[in-house]
């Protein structure tokens, strides 16, 4: 079975700043895949390329068997009908209620009667445990609740591919465990594939099928959660065990040596 998402030697640069340098990865159907790396390593760029928000400078990005590199906007929008994305802070529409937020993609992309829209929205909100909050405004929700509403909105039309941008960032331990469980359960219930961009190692290893580690725009290691836990690779060890010293540098590269900077 062909993978749902495939990156083949993909490079990408913001102007002259190279972010991805020859990255290759696959997301098989039905799996939850995590992309991990330090802040600024290029993992969110991977998600943006996958959703077609950015185009690769070189290499090939394939989603659902279609190449995204030169796809027209109209074709891309067609493709996105089978995608759902959870943004880091939810990105809920602040002028709409929780109910209307979840109903938004259904109303925009289908012609279903309002009675069925209501049922669908309530089913999605029930799935994330927030049916009782349907009437609330996004401003009245906690961070964890907003993330769950955004998740209900992302799965409103039963997508084949769900992308999560830092779904665990800033959550309390209970919300974190709930979100992790939801991601796994939803993926399995929908028969979808999920890609999680995160740096939350412990939570992710409990729910994912495969992990890719990104550093400086390259995949430096990958494997199943068990392989990752037992890995002897210095990068993986540093990341999984949260060590301060290792191949991931503490200092952002400076133009001048420290001594020279102080004596100048």
């Amino acid at each position: 079975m062909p993978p749902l998402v495939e990156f083949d030697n993909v490079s990408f640069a913001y102007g002259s700043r190279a972010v991805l340098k020859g990255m290759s990865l696959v997301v098989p159907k039905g799996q939850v895949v995590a992309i991990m790396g330090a802040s600024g390593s290029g993992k969110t760029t991977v998600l943006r390329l996958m959703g077609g928000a950015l185009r690769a400078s070189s290499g090939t990005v394939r989603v659902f068997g279609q190449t995204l590199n030169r796809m027209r906007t109209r074709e891309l929008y067609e493709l996105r009908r089978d995608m759902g994305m959870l943004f880091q802070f939810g990105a809920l529409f602040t002028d709409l209620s929780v109910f209307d937020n979840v109903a938004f993609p259904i109303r925009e992309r289908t012609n279903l009667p309002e009675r069925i829209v209501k049922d669908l929205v309530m089913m999605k909100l029930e799935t994330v445990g927030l049916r009782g909050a349907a009437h609330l405004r996004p401003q009245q929700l906690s961070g964890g609740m907003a993330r769950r509403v955004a998740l209900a909105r992302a799965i409103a039309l039963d997508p084949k591919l769900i992308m999560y941008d830092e779904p665990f960032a800033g959550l309390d331990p209970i919300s974190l465990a709930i979100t992790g469980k939801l991601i796994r359960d939803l993926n399995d219930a929908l028969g979808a594939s999920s890609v999680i961009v995160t740096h939350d190692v412990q939570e992710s290893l409990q729910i994912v099928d495969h992990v890719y580690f990104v550093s400086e725009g390259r995949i430096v290691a990958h494997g199943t959660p068990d392989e990752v836990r037992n890995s002897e690779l210095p990068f993986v060890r540093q990341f999984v065990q949260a060590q301060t010293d290792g191949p991931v540098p503490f200092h952002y590269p400076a133009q001048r040596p420290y001594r020279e900077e102080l004596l100048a």
Partner: protein
Amino acid sequence: MGFLLDFVERLGAYVNHRIARLGFAARFLWVMLRTSGTSLMRLHLTIREIYFAGVLSLIIVSVSALFVGMVLALQGYDTLVRFGASEAVGTLVALSLVRELGPVMAALLFASRAGSAITAEIGLMKATEQLAAMEMMAVDPIARVVGPRFWGGVISMPLLAAIFSAIGVFGGYLIAVVQIGVDFGSFWSQMQAAVDWKSDVVNGLLKSFVFGIAVSWIAVFEGYDAMPTAEGVSRATTRTVVISAVVILMLDFILTAFMFRGN
């Protein structure tokens, strides 16, 4: 020499940036017009924006118009009475408002109240990834968010200008007739005789329509192009008000030169 080269280089970069931005704004307008069918088909979105941009601007427009009309009557009477033409104060108030002050003042007030709000709203939607989320849902934010706000502004502007002129004339009546004692019949009849439907009223409305396009375009573009940060949105909001004010006055001169030359 080095200073001069540096200056020329900076100037060139600045001019390049401005031209590129103007080009981007033109392309943005084209995309907005191209997707207008989608925006206008869902009329409730445009009506909602007419409410926010137009109806909610009514109080500030009405109060300002009343005072502008009253000041015009006071100043106009003071000058006209020296020539024994105090009955013509109605004409002066009406022509000043319908031709110039109605469209210009309403547009300036619209830019400061509704234009800045539109920029801030779209800018914040961008900063909080709401526009990106919409795109990921295969919904075009230009058609869904920008278009209705643009058309809401374009439709509201001539209506606000007409209301401004009408209330301004009423303000002039209060001062000239009620307060000063200019003859009621002369005030209204001279006004009716002097104000021409086509060359004054229609041209005034045409002006406000053009201002509506300009201000709404600037407001939505600045919001859409804002840096997605608190500072970026704040700067974009300021730019909307400042650029709109300059563009309104510049366009007013150009339109006046074409419309009222020799009249």
